[in-house]
């Protein structure tokens, strides 16, 4: 078991290194010289030269890369070219907002997707399965920013039940948080619900064929007990390993959802940075996302090894 975990760790290191190369390369192909922005209107050649030297842009690329990597390793992910604020601070400010949205949408997705997947598997081939399939296909196909616009149109503009935009932290005002988070969380959760439903269905179908489920049925257990206690519990493992896939879907979805509902989160941070040509922030955000993703994958892998008795030798 420890060998397996160590193996995962060893594989993650070159991946992390390559991510840094990728992000560094991305910064190099970005259009426009960031120094021109910093040098101001006059663009005095002497000032430019001074800045170039100060930031090490006159060094060969590999040297620049190593210098940058050393900064990253000491926790300096760069700074905004506009305000000079460190990227990690900006991420720290926006991340709680996105986490609140993400948790709410995961709850909604689980509440819709898992029961629907179980039902579709248990009633395979019936109209229940067909309806669940249509719903999940629609959930996968609907662009979530459009779903957001339609919801705003109906719920906020026509019915005036919920506000169309804004953000309230659940720590400040739980009721207000519910009002502002409900719609965006549903929008973000709809696609996740569809993914969850499909995976729950196929995981359940795998498990329902197995001997111990038949034994449980033969013992005369209530169908509900068989499905929830015997089948679903064992179908849960493959569903949980989906989490990394869902993480990517969540973050990408959050970019658009936050844009539609004007929520000051992590997704809006990167979009605003792109439009402000603040490449320092773009680069830092991409790096943070990738590192978080790899670390999450690693944790999921290790947890899987720890949980799975067959790998515990």
């Amino acid at each position, binding site marked *: 078991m420890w060998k397996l975990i160590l193996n995962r760790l060893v*594989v993650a290191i*070159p*991946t*992390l290194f*390559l*991510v840094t*190369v*990728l992000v560094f390369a*991305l910064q190099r*192909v*970005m*259009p426009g010289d960031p120094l021109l922005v910093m040098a101001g209107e006059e663009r005095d050649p002497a000032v430019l030269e001074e800045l170039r030297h100060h930031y090490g842009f006159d060094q060969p690329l590999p040297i620049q890369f190593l210098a940058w990597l050393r900064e990253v390793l000491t926790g300096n992910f760069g700074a905004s070219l506009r305000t000079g604020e460190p990227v990690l601070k900006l991420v720290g400010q926006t991340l709680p907002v996105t986490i609140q949205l993400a948790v709410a949408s995961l709850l909604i997705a689980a509440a819709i997707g898992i029961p629907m997947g179980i039902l579709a598997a248990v009633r395979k081939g019936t109209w229940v399965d067909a309806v669940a*399939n249509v719903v999940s*296909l*629609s959930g*996968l*196909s*609907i*662009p979530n*920013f*459009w779903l957001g*616009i*339609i919801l*705003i*149109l109906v719920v906020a*503009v026509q019915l005036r039940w919920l506000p*169309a935009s804004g953000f309230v932290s659940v720590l400040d005002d739980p009721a207000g948080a519910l009002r502002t988070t409900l719609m965006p969380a549903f929008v973000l959760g709809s696609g996740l619900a569809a993914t969850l439903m499909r995976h729950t269905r196929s995981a359940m179908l795998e498990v329902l064929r197995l001997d111990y489920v038949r034994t449980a049925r033969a013992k005369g257990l209530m169908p509900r007990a068989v499905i929830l206690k015997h089948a679903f519990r064992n179908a849960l493992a493959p569903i949980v390993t989906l989490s990394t896939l869902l*993480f*990517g*879907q969540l*973050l*990408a979805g959050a*970019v*658009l959802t936050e*844009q*539609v509902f004007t929520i000051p989160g992590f997704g809006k941070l*990167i*979009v605003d940075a*792109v*439009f402000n040509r603040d*490449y320092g922030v*773009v680069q830092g*955000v*991409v790096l943070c*996302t*990738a590192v978080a*993703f*790899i670390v999450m*994958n690693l944790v999921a892998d290790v947890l899987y090894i720890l949980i799975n008795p067959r790998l515990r030798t």
Partner: protein
Amino acid sequence: MTALEAGSVIGDASEVLPPTRRRALAKFLKNRSAVVGAAIVLLFVALAVLAPLIAPFDPNKTNFAALRRAPSLVHWLGTDEIGRDILSRVMHGGVASLLAGVVSVAIALVIGLPVGLAAGWLGGWVDAIVGRITDALLAVPFLILAIALAAALGPSLTNAMIAIGLSQVPIFVRLTRGQVLAVRAEEFVEGARAVGVPQSLILARHILPNITAPLLVQATLTTATAIIAEASLSFLGLGQQPPAPSWGSMLNTAKNFLEQAPWMSLAPGAAIFLVVLGFNMLGDGLRDALDPREE
């Protein structure tokens, strides 16, 4: 029959393919949702291709006498904030979306297929390096990578297609590699190697034909993802630039007129939804029809 079996053992899979292909086609046609999906896709392709001929108005012609008109007999889907006919813009906008879907998947395939073939067939250090690079690319969520690339390349439809295509490369590398590993262990490949068939011929005649089915399915489903991605980038202002019509950028404008002209946001979004639904249904149908296990 014995001749056929002998042929398949030595490795000429093409002799046994036609019946399986026929069976797959029959299975596909029996699958109602797959046929509906194909019909939706064809309808939108036709609308986009024929748009210059059948669209009622010039998609970029402004009409200040008809600003933000609700749907009517003249303008079936209404007009936008500068009096352009929304139906005509939706029809012309289909070109951008469909093109983005197809071109970006083509880019991903052209890079991903050979790289995946090399990784799966050669193994060893090639596989290790390719594997790590794919992991690194997959570590950045697809849309965020596409946004960063589109921002780096500059906002335009072409760059959006390149960005989306590049961010989809790892999916095809992984899939191709996995398929190659599965097929190269088959007896007919071992047989071909044993009798000394050159590697390039084995790859072209035995490996490639046997991995096209899953690649085709993935390409169809990825087209759906790519169309949403293009719409998303255009919605953010990183794709098709105005005044050229695209569904994503139409929605970007429409969201500012929700109170005054709600119809502006209906048609472009519905169009994206339907096309993507069509590709997803088609992809699911192809998977069911081409999967030999699901009998």
